């Protein structure tokens, strides 16, 4: 299969990035770096010359990375591309797992696909581990739960509306719960008491 493909990972979650790096290395790939948004991505990518970029879809840097395509006009650098546009299923799988991939122009899709598959599998595993859902904002039904829970906190702990909301938000974050899940617990508890 020719030279080892050089892969760069951009992920805000170090644990997941490290898992994925291990998996890729054991498959015979070279992982040139694991970066997150705090690093100077543009300079690092230009210096490292990766063949493939695997980018966490939650990264706010995706738009910047994608634009490196236009930098390509000035200096021969990686071109940005989604996996394989004709393959609707693999795009869906990647998007649902939160993986985006960019490859150097001219690299054959069949050489990239196994890499993306490993990334999807690892991302899915981490999603399952953390019970982590997409950052979908509360639906109206969920918001109503939050409103009720807020009311309970305001009454029971004599808090103002903002403070009650902040307390809910903080606690949900600490317990890694969605606001609506925590709200449901508060309401259930109130009914018991």
């Amino acid at each position, binding site marked *: 299969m020719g030279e080892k493909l050089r892969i760069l990972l951009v992920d805000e979650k170090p644990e997941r990035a490290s898992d994925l790096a291990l998996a890729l290395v054991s498959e015979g790939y070279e992982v040139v770096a694991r970066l997150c*948004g705090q690093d*100077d991505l*543009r300079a690092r990518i230009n210096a490292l010359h990766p063949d493939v970029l695997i980018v966490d*879809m*939650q*990264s*706010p*840097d*995706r*738009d*910047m990375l*994608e*634009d490196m*395509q*236009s*930098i390509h*006009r*000035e200096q021969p650098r990686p071109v*940005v*591309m*989604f996996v394989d*546009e004709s393959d*609707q299923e693999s*795009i*869906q799988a990647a*998007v*649902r797992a939160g993986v*985006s991939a960019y490859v150097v122009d001219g690299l054959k899709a069949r050489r990239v696909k196994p890499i993306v598959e490993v990334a999807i599998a690892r991302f899915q595993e981490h999603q399952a581990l953390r019970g982590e859902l*997409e*950052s*979908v*904002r*509360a*639906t*109206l*039904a969920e*918001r109503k739960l939050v409103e009720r829970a807020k009311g309970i906190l305001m009454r029971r702990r004599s808090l103002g509306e*903002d403070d009650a*909301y902040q307390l809910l*938000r903080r606690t949900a974050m600490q317990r890694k719960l969605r606001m609506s899940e925590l709200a449901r617990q508060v309401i259930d508890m109130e009914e018991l008491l």
Partner: protein
Amino acid sequence: MSAPEKPDLVLGFTPLTDCAPLIVALEHGHFERYGLRVALSCEPSWANIRDKLAAGVLDGAQMLAPMPIASTLGVGPLHQAMVTALSLGLNGNTITVSTELARSMAEADPQAMATVSGRARALARVVAERSDIGAARLRFASVFPVSMHAYHLRRWFASAGLRAERDLRLVVQSPVRMVAELEAGAIDGFCVGEPWGSLAVARGSGSSLLATHELWNCAPEKVLGVRLDFAERHPETHLALVCALLEAARWCDAHENRPKLARMLADGGFVRAPASVLALSESHVFHRYAANFPWRSHAIWIIAEMLRWGQIEKPLDVRTAAASVYRTDLAREAASRLGLAVPQADEKREGTHAEPWQAAGTTGPITLGPDLFFDGSVFDPGDPVGYLARCEVSDLRFPLEELEALQA
């Protein structure tokens, strides 16, 4: 009105003040009133919005006005036919530079700083001075390659003879990172939606050069994008969605609601900026002046810019392409359900009105907004080829005759 075919929807948005109609429609129960159960998904990048919409993970989304066109024409990754029947508002971006660059510009040409065109000339002076001493090119950021931000910047640069690729560096940065990048010196200026420009000014790191309505008043900005096949398979759902957002946009536009709106965006954690910088300027139009109408002339202008800057690589029939994405027919149907007047025409000449003006509407006269360009130019949507022929700075990828041959 029949029940929506698909009542459960996930809509994508990005944390900017112009996501407001989506937030208000959720918070005030407009979606519910039209039989929709909507969840909003906060997306950190425009690329995510495009990919998730294309993959069907999102049903609809706040998009940069050029995005559904780009996806439909295959400009950038993922070729997917999309449509819009609703503009989410007009104006709302600013161009901000580092205080250091602002000072250099003022020193280079103090008189010029009085006007928007003059400030471009002052920038050109600084660019020339830096080039003489071999200093690095100045870096400006837009938010996406196909964005009004990129086109505003490119046109403003071009007005002083500056070419984004040759004389400067035009990069892309996420709105949420813009201020930090400016403060770190990684970029020298940016064009971004509010509140990020105001935040840089409030923090003392940025100097506001202009608001983009000074470059083109009542310019398109964000739209509601859906996949074409979604609109075709779920016509009632799509119309219900447009109606709910029209009602929400009307509420957002009312002067007396603006402070409440700013608080809603800040307190709900939708836009992570202090409420003090979230105050919405009056130039940000959510509903009046037929702001929600997806003017085909806007789409034609956008396609002309995509051609001008080399983003579209092959000739195409511009007006037919514009009509396939900017669906004025669907916009009129939604507006008629609400009894709202919308323009009778699909296109208008841009750059001819300094003041609000009257046009023929579906249910009587309708007031449209001022639409001047900063350079005094006029854009005739009937002749995009003529427009491109007049552009001195242009990266058109093929001879203009090839484009002309394809126009219907």
